[in-house]
């Protein structure tokens, strides 16, 4: 990186020209393929370009061609580049090579800059550089369209031309007017020379003391630019991380101003490498939340304020995994090549509904990640026969079985299917039998799979992990509720103390959440999204417990402020049903999980569901004595 003076772009003639040019260009392209830039629910494809290629070797003939897309999801812009299936120009390039280069739902908040090359001879290409300093290989536009690509991106994110290199565009993912303002104020720093796209970017400067940050929010651009200029002389290793925090912060609109200043005021709390975990002493850095919803009782301040925590650790949600992208995870025979990256992808975006039937079988472990299309098809056939055999065991006698009488008489054929599968399961797993709550776990699976036998086997796979929830002695539930209490103690000790003082430490108010995995807390579609996220086991097999912590923390002020006792709390928690924001909760949960790190993992005893049972334990221990 060049240690150059910061350029004030507002009086840079070339910059001004480029703005004008690109806005003119935008208008032209507006009349073309872009149909709408209005906010829609879900993902919107705002740019598509075919024949965009990567050159894995020095020979252009060995290129991998694919389709480049810009996708807008809520307020975030994502880029994907997905190679075409089975169209390698060279036989030397395997599906694995293609997978290596695939760009899956890259959020622009993770992008530092885009460098464009428009040589007079040869193909135009761009190089995308991440905030981390890593760069993707050049993307060659065989059909042209680099200008349109940049212009389209510019419509959705803040993109400015670097003062040092007219072909480098710097990315700041700020959406709303306030953030735009902040963004433009901070431009001098964010812009400073990142004209070395292919190598790791060195740490540089951002102001990290409160005094200057307070100036930022005032909106005095001139003064701030001067500050920025001064800052530029210093070398502050926290800067790179600060930029990332700023980018993440940009996604949380309503806490814009105060959060910016607080983050920087507390910057020593965050100025660590991302690989490290904060230790428990960090929470004390945060100021006490002034406002208290109830206003009745002073509430102990949250040692770990979720908004800030999620800002720093929780990643934005992505659009769901669709068919085209799904195939990029598979080799030509249908094996998942990199299960970890697949699970991570699903964790952040879920799965499009029409893909669930295929993906869930693998996610649940019914089909192995490394199984081929043919193997899966074969297993499905075998398992269908096996299912019919188990089902025959009960078919003759069930008419007189009153234990299922509450299912009788409904005209809905799906209820019969549900009943048949659960009855068959009670014969498949005699020890566990049928339990209230199982139908909640089966019903979304049946809805997705449609097929009776396939639903059954997916349910079997799910119950391998969740079966202990239904242990007669409640041991599976106890171990999870115990782990939950440990996590709350770790992540919100005042709340934990409150529960202790009010005889609520058994956490039974979270019983329904855990027993049926929040099935009754969310609408159907949201439940399915949550489940596929939980099934990825990323970043923890026990993310559901962090989800519990996240929800409790969101309501801590009310719980403590209104001095809820056990009964009131149980009632309050039950009534939260349908009032929980899933995406925000998942972000909080991820942030809490990452923050807790090894201390969190150590709070959860080995073998706690949905971990697979320990080797030396019987599968479903059923001691006679009640623990309660």
């Amino acid at each position, binding site marked *: 990186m060049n240690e150059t003076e910061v350029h004030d772009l507002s009086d840079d003639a070339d910059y001004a020209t480029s703005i004008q040019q690109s806005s003119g260009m935008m208008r032209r392209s507006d009349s073309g393929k872009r149909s709408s830039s209005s906010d829609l629910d879900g993902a919107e494809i705002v740019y598509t370009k075919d024949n965009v290629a990567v050159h894995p070797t020095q020979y252009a003939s060995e290129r991998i061609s694919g389709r480049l897309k810009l996708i807008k999801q809520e307020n975030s812009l994502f880029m994907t580049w997905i190679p075409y299936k089975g169209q390698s120009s060279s036989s030397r390039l395997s599906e694995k090579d293609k997978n290596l280069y695939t760009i899956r739902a890259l959020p622009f908040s993770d992008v530092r800059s885009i460098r464009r090359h428009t040589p007079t001879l040869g193909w135009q290409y761009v190089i995308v550089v991440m905030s981390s300093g890593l760069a993707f290989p050049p993307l060659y536009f065989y059909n042209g369209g680099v200008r349109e690509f940049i212009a389209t991106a510019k419509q959705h994110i803040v993109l400015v031309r670097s003062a040092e290199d007219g072909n480098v565009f710097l990315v700041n993912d700020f959406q709303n007017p306030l953030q735009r303002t902040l963004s433009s104020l901070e431009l001098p720093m964010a812009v400073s020379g990142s004209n070395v796209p292919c190598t790791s970017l060195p740490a540089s400067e951002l102001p990290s003391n409160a005094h200057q940050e307070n100036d930022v929010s005032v909106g005095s651009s001139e003064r701030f630019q001067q500050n920025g200029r001064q800052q530029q002389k210093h070398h502050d290793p926290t800067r790179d991380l600060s930029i990332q925090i700023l980018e993440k912060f940009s996604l949380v609109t309503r806490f814009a101003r105060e959060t910016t200043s607080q983050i920087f005021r507390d910057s020593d709390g965050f100025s660590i490498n991302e690989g490290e975990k904060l230790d428990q002493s960090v929470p004390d850095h945060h100021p006490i939340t002034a406002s208290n919803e109830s206003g009745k009782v002073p509430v102990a301040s949250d040692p770990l304020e979720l908004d800030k925590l999620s800002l720093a650790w929780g990643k934005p949600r992505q659009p769901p995994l669709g068919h085209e992208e799904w195939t990029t995870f598979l080799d030509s025979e249908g094996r998942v090549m990199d299960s970890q990256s697949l699970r991570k992808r699903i964790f952040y975006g879920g799965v499009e509904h029409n893909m669930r039937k295929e993906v869930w079988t693998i996610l649940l472990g019914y089909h192995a990640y490394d199984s081929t299309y043919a193997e899966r098809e074969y297993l499905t056939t075998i398992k269908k026969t096996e299912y019919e055999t188990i089902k025959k065991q009960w078919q003759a006698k069930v008419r007189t079985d009153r234990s299922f009488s509450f299912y009788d008489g409904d005209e809905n054929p799906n209820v019969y299917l549900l009943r048949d599968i659960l009855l068959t399961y009670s014969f498949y797993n005699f020890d566990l039998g049928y*339990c*209230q709550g199982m*139908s909640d776990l089966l019903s979304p699976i049946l809805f997705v799979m449609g097929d009776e036998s396939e639903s059954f086997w997916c349910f079997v796979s799910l119950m391998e992990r969740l079966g202990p929830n239904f242990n007669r002695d409640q041991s599976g539930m106890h171990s999870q509720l115990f782990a939950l209490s440990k996590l709350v103690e770790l992540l919100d000790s005042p709340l934990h103390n409150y529960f202790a003082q009010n005889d609520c430490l058994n956490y039974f108010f979270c019983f329904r959440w855990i027993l049926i995995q929040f099935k009754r807390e969310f609408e159907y579609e949201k439940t399915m999204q949550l489940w596929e996220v939980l099934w990825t086991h990323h970043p923890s097999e026990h993310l559901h417990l962090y989800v519990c912590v996240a929800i409790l923390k969101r309501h801590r002020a009310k719980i403590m402020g209104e001095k809820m006792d056990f009964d*009131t709390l149980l009632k309050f928690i*039950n009534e939260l049903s349908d009032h929980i924001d899933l995406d925000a909760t998942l972000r909080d949960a991820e942030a809490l999980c990452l923050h807790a790190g090894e201390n969190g993992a150590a709070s959860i005893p080995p073998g706690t569901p949905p971990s697979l049972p320990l080797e030396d334990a019987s599968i479903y221990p059923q001691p006679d004595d009640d623990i*309660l």
Partner: protein
Amino acid sequence: MASSGNKNINAKLVLLGDVGAGKSSLVLRFVKGQFIEFQESTIGAAFFSQTVALNEATVKFEIWDTAGQERYHSLAPMYYRGAAAAIIVYDITNQTSFDRAKKWVQELQAQGNPNMVMALAGNKSDMLDARQVAAEEAQSYARENSLFFMETSAKTANNVNDLFYEIAKRLPLMQPASNPSGMVLVDRPADKATGASCCS
């Protein structure tokens, strides 16, 4: 606990009984005047509230509806502790559910609040053709154990409101109820608002 003050009484009431006996249906009929043929099973416990007006007082029931399956039996003490009243429900077309109801009575007699008002409800009284438990048998069992007994039908609404009304009348309104042992007392005003429920 039932507590009196300006003739407005809050009373915690818990429903216990075998799976499929109709606990949730009774509550739904009483609270919302509705009946669903295939009521989904209760997980953990559900909370409702409904007010009954007597001549001398208004009783607001805080109703805890519990999961019926034997498997979840061990959770029940959490729900019935501190309850002023309990309805033990069985299905008149299912002898097993009546046997189960007797076990609940025994447990409450041994573990519950000694001043608790207990009612025995033989539900599904509309299904006379399938009756397995004679009304006389249940009535004499109730008498022996000092229970208030009624046959009810959540489906037709027969006797449902009467059941809750009769329980309200039997609450020990004027005597301050003693606290069950082991209960943690929370320091808060006696007239604590419980009107946050969405059901009333």
